[in-house]
C-alpha cells in the first residue's frame, strides 16, 4: 500500500511556515470576531501604504512604512467592500494554508471572485456585484493583509511567477535538494518565490553583479564572466520581484558580498537600482527584509556617457558612438526624473549631478549599447575597470 499523505512529500520548511502563517491570521481575525460578538463595530486598523506614509530611514538607508493608519470599519458604507475583501482574501489564504496548497495571487483572485445578487431596497430591483472584478483589487487586499498581520505573502506560501535568475560558483539547498549554481549549463537557477527557505551551502565568489537586462545577463553568462571574475551573476529581468530582492539582500547580509547593479542609463533604470537599495514606495513595509542598503550603482552613468571635466573623467563612448547609441528622452522620462529628484534618497551630490546631466542633455542609453560597442569591452574593460577604480555611486 502506498501512503496517500501529501505531508510526507512536503519540505520541512514549508510545514513550519504554514503553521506560523495560520496562527498569525487566526490571531488577527479572532480579535475581530470577539469585537463583533461583544457588539463593537468591527474595524481593521492597517498602516497606510502611501507615499505620505513612507519614511526614508537615512541611518539605515532604506524606506520604511510610517505610523499613519487607516481604519476600515465594516459599518461604514464607503469602507464595507474593502473590509469584506480583506476578510475574504484572509479566509481563502487560511484555507489554502490548511489544505497544503501553494496558490498564486492569480489563483487567489479566482478563488475569491463570485457574484453577490442583492436587492436594492430603495427601488426593489435585484442587482449584481462581484466581490472583485480585476486582479489588482485582490492584489491590493493581499498587500493590506501583509501589513495587517506583518507577514510577507511568500511566508504565507503564496507563490508568484519566477523572474529572477542566478548563476555562479555556489551551492544552495532548496526544499530538500542541493543545487550547484555553477552547473546550470546555458540556463540559470530561477530564484524561487520563497528565498527565505533557501539554505546557502558554500560559495566561491568575490562580488555580486545584478543586471537589469536578461539578454545582457545571458551574454555575460555564456561568455564566462562569472568564472573569470569570481562573481555571482543575477538578473532581475526588469523591475525586480520580491524574491530576487530578498535573495540579493541575503547574499549581502549573510555572505558579506558587495552588490553591484547595472541598469540602463535612464530614470527607469535608476528606480530599479533604488528599489534594490532602499525599497519601493508602495511596498515600503517590506523594505526591512528586501532592501539592500549597501548596494552600489555601477552604471551606466551619465558621466560614463558624457565624461566629466570636473571629475577629470573621460567618457567611455566616442563622439560618434554617442551619436549612434543615445536615445532621446521622452516627456515621461523627464517627468519621472524630476520626481526622483524630489525623493530624499536621491538627493545626494552625485545623484543630483546624474539627474541634472540627464535633464540637460535629455538623453538616455541602454546597456545593450555597450555590448554593441563590443561584448569584450563590457566584460573586460567597462565592468572590471569601474569596480577596480571604485567608479560607482553608493
Amino acid at each position, binding site marked *: 500500500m502506498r501512503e496517500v499523505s501529501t505531508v510526507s512529500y512536503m519540505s520541512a520548511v514549508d510545514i513550519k511556515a504554514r503553521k506560523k502563517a495560520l496562527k498569525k491570521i487566526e490571531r488577527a*481575525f479572532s480579535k475581530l470576531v470577539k469585537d*463583533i460578538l461583544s457588539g463593537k463595530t468591527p474595524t481593521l486598523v492597517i498602516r497606510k501604504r502611501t507615499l505620505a506614509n513612507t519614511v526614508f530611514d537615512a541611518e539605515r538607508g532604506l524606506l520604511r512604512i510610517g505610523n499613519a493608519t487607516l481604519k476600515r470599519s*465594516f459599518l461604514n*458604507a464607503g469602507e464595507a*467592500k474593502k473590509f469584506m475583501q480583506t*476578510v*475574504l482574501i484572509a479566509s481563502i489564504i487560511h484555507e489554502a494554508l490548511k489544505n497544503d496548497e501553494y496558490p498564486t495571487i492569480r489563483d487567489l483572485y479566482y478563488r475569491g471572485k463570485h457574484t453577490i445578487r442583492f*436587492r436594492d431596497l430603495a427601488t426593489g430591483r435585484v442587482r449584481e456585484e462581484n466581490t472583485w472584478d480585476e486582479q489588482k483589487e485582490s492584489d491590493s487586499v493581499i498587500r493590506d493583509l501583509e501589513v495587517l498581520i506583518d507577514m510577507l505573502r511568500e511566508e504565507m506560501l503564496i507563490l508568484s511567477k519566477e523572474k529572477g535568475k542566478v548563476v555562479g560558483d555556489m551551492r544552495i539547498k532548496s526544499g530538500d535538494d542541493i543545487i550547484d549554481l555553477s552547473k546550470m549549463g546555458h540556463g540559470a537557477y530561477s530564484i524561487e518565490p520563497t528565498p527565505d527557505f533557501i539554505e546557502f551551502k558554500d560559495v566561491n565568489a568575490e562580488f555580486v553583479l545584478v543586471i537589469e537586462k536578461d539578454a545582457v545577463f545571458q551574454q555575460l553568462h555564456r561568455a564566462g564572466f562569472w568564472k573569470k571574475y569570481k562573481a555571482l551573476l543575477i538578473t532581475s529581468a526588469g523591475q525586480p520581484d520580491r524574491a530576487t530582492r530578498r535573495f540579493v539582500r541575503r547574499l549581502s547580509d549573510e555572505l558579506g558580498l558587495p552588490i553591484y547593479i547595472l541598469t540602463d542609463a535612464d530614470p527607469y533604470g535608476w528606480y530599479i537600482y533604488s528599489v534594490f537599495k532602499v525599497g519601493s514606495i508602495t511596498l515600503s513595509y517590506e523594505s526591512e527584509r528586501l532592501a539592500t542598503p549597501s548596494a552600489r550603482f555601477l552604471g551606466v552613468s551619465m558621466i560614463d556617457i558624457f565624461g566629466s571635466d570636473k571629475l577629470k573623467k573621460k567618457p567611455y563612448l566616442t563622439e560618434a558612438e554617442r551619436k549612434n547609441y543615445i536615445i532621446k528622452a521622452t516627456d515621461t522620462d523627464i517627468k519621472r526624473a524630476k520626481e526622483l529628484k524630489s525623493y530624499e534618497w536621491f538627493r545626494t551630490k552625485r545623484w543630483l549631478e546624474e539627474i541634472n546631466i540627464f535633464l540637460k542633455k535629455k538623453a538616455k542609453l541602454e546597456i545593450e549599447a555597450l555590448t554593441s560597442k563590443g561584448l569584450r569591452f563590457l566584460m573586460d574593460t567597462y565592468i572590471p575597470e569601474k569596480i577596480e577604480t571604485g567608479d560607482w555611486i553608493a
Partner: protein
Amino acid sequence: MASEATAEKFRALTPSEFFYRNRELAGFSNPARALYQAVRELVENALDATDPHGIHPTIKVILQKVSAERDNIFSISVEDNGIGIPSAQVPRAFGQLLYSSKYVLRQTRGMFGLGAKMAVLYGQMTTGRSVEVLTSTITAKNIYYFNIAIDVKTNTPIIHEKGVYRKNNGWHGTVVKLYLEGDWTRSKSKIYEYLKRTAIIAPYAEIVFEDPEGTITYFERSTRKMPPPPREVKPHPKGVDIEMMRMMLKATKTKTLLEFLIKEFQSVGEVTARRLIENAGLLPDMKPHELSTEDVERLVRVIKSDTKIKPPSANHLSYVGEEIIKVGLKAILKPEFVTAVTRKPSVYEGHAFIVEAGLAYGGEIQPEDRPVLYRYANKIPLLYDEGADVARKVVDRIDWSHYGVTFPAPLVILVHICSTKVPYKGVGKESVADVPEVEHEIELAIREVARRLKRYLSKKKREREEAERAVAIAKYIPDVARGLAKIVNNVREEMIEKELLKMLNMKLRSFKINSVSDVVVGIE
C-alpha cells in the same frame, strides 16, 4: 354678474324663449358638449339634493342609446337618495325656467337651477320627448311620477302624465330621465373626467355610472365625513351692484331705507346705515321703492367707497376641508403622497371666498411635462378653458424645481374656490378671472402644499440614501460572516451574521432590515 343681467333680459322674451335661442350660453352648443352638460347638470342637482342636507349621496347615472338605428339619440337617467321634491312643486321645478329652490344667496353648486331645465328644454328640442321624474320626499307617504314638457311660448309646464304610488320601503330621492341628441364618442372622455373629478371632491358620495357601451364604473364611498352644509346669508353691501340693489329695493318688505339697509344686508348696523344714507344725500325714512335711478346709483357708489363697513362674514361658506380633499385624491389617484390646505376666508369686492388646494404626487399618477391641474368652483369640476384660468396662471408661474420637482413629474394640483360669488370669466363659467385677491390666495395655498411636498421629497431622499448606505453594507454581511467563521474556530456563521445585522440596524433611523436575505438574494 352675467346671471343678473340675463335675468333682467328674460322680462322681454319668456325665459324659455331666450334660452331656446341662446342655448350655447348654458353649455348646450353642440351634441357632444350637450351630452356632457346634461350629465353634469343632473349630477349636480343630485348632489345638491343630498350633501347639504346631511345625506351621504348615492347617485346612479345611466346613459343609454335609445335605439340601435339612431346613433345620436340618448337617454340619461340620474337617480339620487336626496330629500326629494314635494309633488306640488315638481311641474314648475322641471317645466318652468327660473323656478328654483336655489333662488337665495347661498353657496350651492349651480345658481338658480337653470341647468337641469336647460337640459330638459334641449332634450325636448332635439328629440321631441319630455322629461320623466320619479320623486318622494323623506316624509311623503307616496312616490310621484310625472311626465312633463315645457311650453316654450308661455314658459309653463305641460303635464303629460302623472302617477301616484304608495311607498312601502322608505325610499326618498329623485330619478330624472330625459332624452336628447348627443355625441358619445366625442364626449366620452370629458364625461369620465367629470365623474372622476366629482368623485375626488366628494369622496363621501358613491357614484355608479353605466355608459352607452354597457361599461359600469363604480366610484366607491371612501369616507363618511362630509363638509358642513352651506347656510343662507344676506348679501354684503359691497357685493351688490346697481341692478341687484334696484331689485332688492323693489322686492323688500321693509318700510324705510334705514330699515332696508339694516335688515337686508349683513355687516350693516344703525350707525353704518345712517352714515351711508347721509353720505349719499338721502333720508333715513324714505320708502325703499321711492328711490330714483340716480339715488340708487349714488347709494351704491357711496357703499363701494366706504372704508368702515365690516368685511363680509364667511360663516356661510361650505369648504370641503383638508381631510376630505386628501381622502378624495388618495382614493381616485392612488398617489404616494397627498396633502391639502384650506386657507382662511378672504374678501374680494364684498364677496367672501375661501381657497383650498390639494396636491397629489407619485404612485399611480402618470408623469407629465407640467403639473396636472384640477380646478373646482363650489365643488363643481371645471373642465373647459383651463388656459384662461387664474389657477393655471399661478401654477405655471411657480418654479417647481424650487420644491424639488423636475418634470416630467407625476404631480396633480387641485384648486377649489368657494364663494357665494365665484368670479367667473365669461358666461361659460368654466374659468376663474384674474382677481388679485383670489390670485393671491391661490398662490399662497399652492405654495403651502408645494412646501409640504418638498419636505416629503427631501425626507424620502434622505431615506433612500440611508437605504442605499444600508444595502452597501448589508450585501457583504454573508461573505464577511462566512470568511470569519472559516478562519476562527468555534464560531458559527449565523451568529456573526446576526450580530452584524443587529449593529447595522442600530445605525438605521428610517427603517430596519429584518433579515439579511431581504437584501442578499444569492451568492454565485
